[in-house]
């Protein structure tokens, strides 16, 4: 028995020493690589900067230096716009960085694919087809990087795949939405077309994004306000709440009478954002008699539209609880 304990102790001790040595060796190797990377970066910076004046040499052949060079081009590209960014992208294309990144997007290692997808957008290389494919990647970080880069490239061809990825939660909401906002007005037409997609989650995402992108899409949103799916109608009313035109006010006012409570709630919030008092009585009626969600939203909208009036109204005995709550929140905010 003693022998077994002694043997186990020795084995345990040896294993610990080996693990400790491996950790130390690993850290040592990483620190050497970091130092080499840092030195290479300092040496290569002037080369990359010279590209801005169409000078400078070709990219290094050694793997580490090549990686550092690509990283520098991407970092500088991220900070640039206009002619300088175009020039950097042109040089990157001529010197084979575009080809190299296209290859890296097919790498077996996900971090290589993610880094490549990120760099494509920073440099401004038009690898749209490859980025759209990367939205289907098994790794979320690769998909997010690809989405971000499609936005940075202003890739209209990326609008539909981005909306589909957003609707199916395949990319982070903030990343996908920002990408579509970055694409800007050019995204409006494809988004309007997606309002008639057979998948209701895609219709809902498209409607909501139109509110962030294009004020001229009110007509399309008006048609979508009659969508069979209440989720889509909620997205439409939220988008209209951001648009702010006279037509959108009329549609939002009409949606205060929607049969579904959470659509009425979204409409009340939108009325508050638009600042219209056309149906103020209806809001008061909702705050007093409607179901919990629309009543609460209507009271909050009243507090926005009539901040002094609501304080007077709640002083009366028997004031509706949602109005009292909205008045209290208005006072503290």
């Amino acid at each position, binding site marked *: 028995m003693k022998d077994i304990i002694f043997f186990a102790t020795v084995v345990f001790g040896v294993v610990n020493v080996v693990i400790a040595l491996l950790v130390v060796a690993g850290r040592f190797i990483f620190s050497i690589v970091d130092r080499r990377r840092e030195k290479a970066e300092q040496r290569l910076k002037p080369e990359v900067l010279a590209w801005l004046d169409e000078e400078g040499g070709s990219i290094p052949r050694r793997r580490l230096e090549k990686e550092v060079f690509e990283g520098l081009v991407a*970092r500088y590209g*991220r*900070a640039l716009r206009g002619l300088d960014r175009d020039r950097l992208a042109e040089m990157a294309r001529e010197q084979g960085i575009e080809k190299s990144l296209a290859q890296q997007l097919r790498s077996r290692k996900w971090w290589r694919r993610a880094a490549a997808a990120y760099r494509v957008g920073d440099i401004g290389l038009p690898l749209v087809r490859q980025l759209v494919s990367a939205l289907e990647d098994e790794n979320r970080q690769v998909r997010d990087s690809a989405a971000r880069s499609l936005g940075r490239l202003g890739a209209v061809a990326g609008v539909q795949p981005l909306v589909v990825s957003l609707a199916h939660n395949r990319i982070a909401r903030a990343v996908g939405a920002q990408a579509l906002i970055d694409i800007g007005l050019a995204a409006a037409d494809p988004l309007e077309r997606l309002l008639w997609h057979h998948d209701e989650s895609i219709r809902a995402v498209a409607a909501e994004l139109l509110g962030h992108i294009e004020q001229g899409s009110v007509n399309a949103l008006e048609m979508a306000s009659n969508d069979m799916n209440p989720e889509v109608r909620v997205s439409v009313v939220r988008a209209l709440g951001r648009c702010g035109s006279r037509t959108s006010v009329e549609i939002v006012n009409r949606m205060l009478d929607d049969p579904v409570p959470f659509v009425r709630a979204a409409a009340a919030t939108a009325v508050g954002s638009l600042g219209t008092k056309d149906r103020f009585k209806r809001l008061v009626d909702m705050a007093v008699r409607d179901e919990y969600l629309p009543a609460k939203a209507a009271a909050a909208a009243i507090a926005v539209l009539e901040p002094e009036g609501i304080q007077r109204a709640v002083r009366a005995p028997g004031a509706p609880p949602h109005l009292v709550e909205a008045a209290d929140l208005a006072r503290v905010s």
Partner: protein
Amino acid sequence: MDRQTNLDLKEPLTVLVADDDPDILDLVVFRLERSGCKVFTARNGAEALEIMRQHRMNVVILDWMMPVASGIDVIERMRADENLAEIPVLLLTARAQESDVVSGFEAGADDFLTKPFSPRELSHRVMALSNRRS
């Protein structure tokens, strides 16, 4: 000779660039040096003020959001100091809202450029600011 360069002047323009992002510093310094300017760099607002007190600057380029003292803090301190009050300041910032631009000018900035930026445009603006002041 390129119209924007400063090579025909007897003394090169002295420009201070303060930004905590080393890549931005690299890009600005590269473009300004190519335009014939003498460039000083700082990584934060306090360092920028210290350099300005030691060297005479023709133009100062400040990032808005920097550690220790922000670009706006630096401008306010410059405008309160009679030795630095007249130096033209260009704010280079990622803050692009209309309200930010207004706040920048209200604080005393002379020009405003948003990131991502064009170093060529920046260089032209620096020359214009310097010419306007002189």
